[in-house]
């Protein structure tokens, strides 16, 4: 975690330099009596550089954290130990698969409409992320897509995209 913190701190400082430079050159600072569009972002950029450097310094001396420091004494969270979580390319398998399914959902949502994309999302989630049986997957998919459709379309009155190929 200390390494991740150090890397993040360096990236943050780089981000701060970019923000300050962009605000100074492109947005312009204006005058003190009438600050320009870049004045506040410039101040933010400089503050980020300073805070990033401070974070880097503190991360250098960080000790390995306790298993569950926020849970409170005598209070077990029941969380699975970090090393027991299945991973792909260093990232937790479930989280990575969930992210891929969600990005695909965002891409398909307007292209194939609410119903098909939601069914595909739920089917993909239950089959690949949760590894449920086919029957259970189909039941959960049909139920959740229908319930959410009724909720958003009829009860809340949202305009959901429909499939261009279907009547």
């Amino acid at each position, binding site marked *: *975690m200390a390494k*991740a*913190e150090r890397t*993040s701190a360096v990236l943050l400082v780089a981000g701060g330099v970019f*923000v300050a430079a*962009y605000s100074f050159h492109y*947005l312009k600072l204006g*005058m*003190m*009596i*009438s*600050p*320009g*569009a870049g004045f*506040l*972002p410039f101040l*933010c*950029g400089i*503050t*980020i550089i300073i*805070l*990033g450097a*401070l*974070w880097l310094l503190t991360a250098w001396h960080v000790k390995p954290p306790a298993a569950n*420091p*926020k*849970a*409170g*004494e*005598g*209070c*077990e*969270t*029941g969380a*699975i130990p970090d090393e027991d*979580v299945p991973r792909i390319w260093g990232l*937790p398998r*479930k*989280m990575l698969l*969930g*992210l891929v399914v*969600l*990005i695909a*959902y*965002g*891409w398909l*949502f*307007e292209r194939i409409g*609410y119903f098909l994309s939601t069914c595909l*999302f739920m089917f993909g*989630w*239950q089959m690949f*992320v949760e590894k449920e049986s086919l029957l259970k997957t189909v039941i*959960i998919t049909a139920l*959740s897509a229908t319930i*959410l459709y009724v909720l*958003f379309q009829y009860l*809340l*009155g*949202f305009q959901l995209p429909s499939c261009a190929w279907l009547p």
Partner: protein
Amino acid sequence: MEVFYGLINGFAIALTPINLLFCFLGAVLGTAVGVLPGLGPAATIALLLPIAYTIASPVTAIILMAGIFYGSMYGGSTTSILLNLPGEAASVVTCIDGYQMARKGRAGVALGIAAIGSFIAGTVGVIGLTLFAPPIAEFALSFGPPEKFSLALVGLLMAVTLSGASIIKGLILMVIGLLLASVGIDPISGKTRFSFGVIELQSGFDFVTLAMGVFGLGEIFYNLESAAKAEIVTTRVGQIWPRKKDWVRSRWAMLRGTLIGFFIGIIPGGGAVISSLVSYAVEKKVSRHPEEFGKGAIEGVAAPESANNAASSSSFIPLLTLGIPGNASIAMIFAALLIKGVTPGPFLLTEHPDIFWGVIASMYLGNVMLLVLNLPLVGVWVQLLRVPYGILAPVVLLFTAIGSYSIQNQAFDIYALIGFGIFGYMLRKLRFEPGPLVLAFVLGPMIEASMRQSLLMSGGSFLIFLERPISVSLIGIFAVLAIVQAAATLRKSPK
């Protein structure tokens, strides 16, 4: 007398069938959220923000969201006591003695005292809100741009420094929040900031997308990696009504918890989590039997549960009177008001007395509903824990994605949501507390506008913030609190 008439008017609004229904819905949803680990009140209110667009009346929308917020404080104790698993952060400390009481076969009494303490503290908190809010709002009417700037900045800084998390990390998120708020067209110069040619970014990031991403999606991603597994210690709740001995032991604990919670709740950054921790520590210190703490002392349940409920009521004071949200959940309610075209702050009482008094009156009713919902129906709430996370997580993800899309009917918002979700996940992995990010994001436009107006007033001198009495007092109060906090941190650090 004005307060009395205002409250009567508030009850007339809160008692309409539609507002009663939404108050009840808020209480039910809040309790459910409090019971379910891995979905806090801030995340749930964020998920429900798109609904605020469809609810016609702003008072109804805020009644719903306020109900979720204080309802979650009630529900959180159930899982803490029965499972040793806090449903939300403010109930962490209740685990310590609540779970031990459950193991000794006194789960019912622990749940009972938690609900009764919550009810008493919640009601006292609302009475305090009723009495204190109008004079504070009247005082705040005299605030000009320098005072508004100092108040918002000091409020933000207090939220960062007093939250108990890392101050550097809190400040980093605060500045990032201000930066994210500046994305889009600058209202004064008309220049586009940080849009990099993306048309959808010209109107800036939407608060709902940011909040749902960082809180909702971020929390789900994080929980996917460490899905909690817990065993219910007992399904037999037993006698709920406390015995005379329990009453005697817990009455002063409840009172102290209520007072501590009420005053800590008013301070930005204080809120329910800190107040429950402080009240537990105070109770242990003043108890005649400190050795019983951690082994099932009833005061260890009564005090923190009273404190977190009192704090949840009093944290509405800075929102309704000064327009300053003190914590992430209140920031969501702040955003819901903005969505409905209402600016929270001192003018709320004069321009929208229906919202001001309607919400306060609904909190009295909500507390009674929560007592009825929580005491006899505790067994039903425990059953909620049987909903598999494998179903709950994708449904919440769908809810956020569709909710985010529906704001402007553009797929870009789903990608922005995913981006904020990944950011929220990384924040949790790096042990950041995301509250300051959303607080700074909602206050960002006000901070920038009042800073520019103040500089215009002073001819470009930052000294204006030190020359105005209210502004300098606010800065002085923050300086004193920061010094006290720093001294306490230094005392605690190992030599």
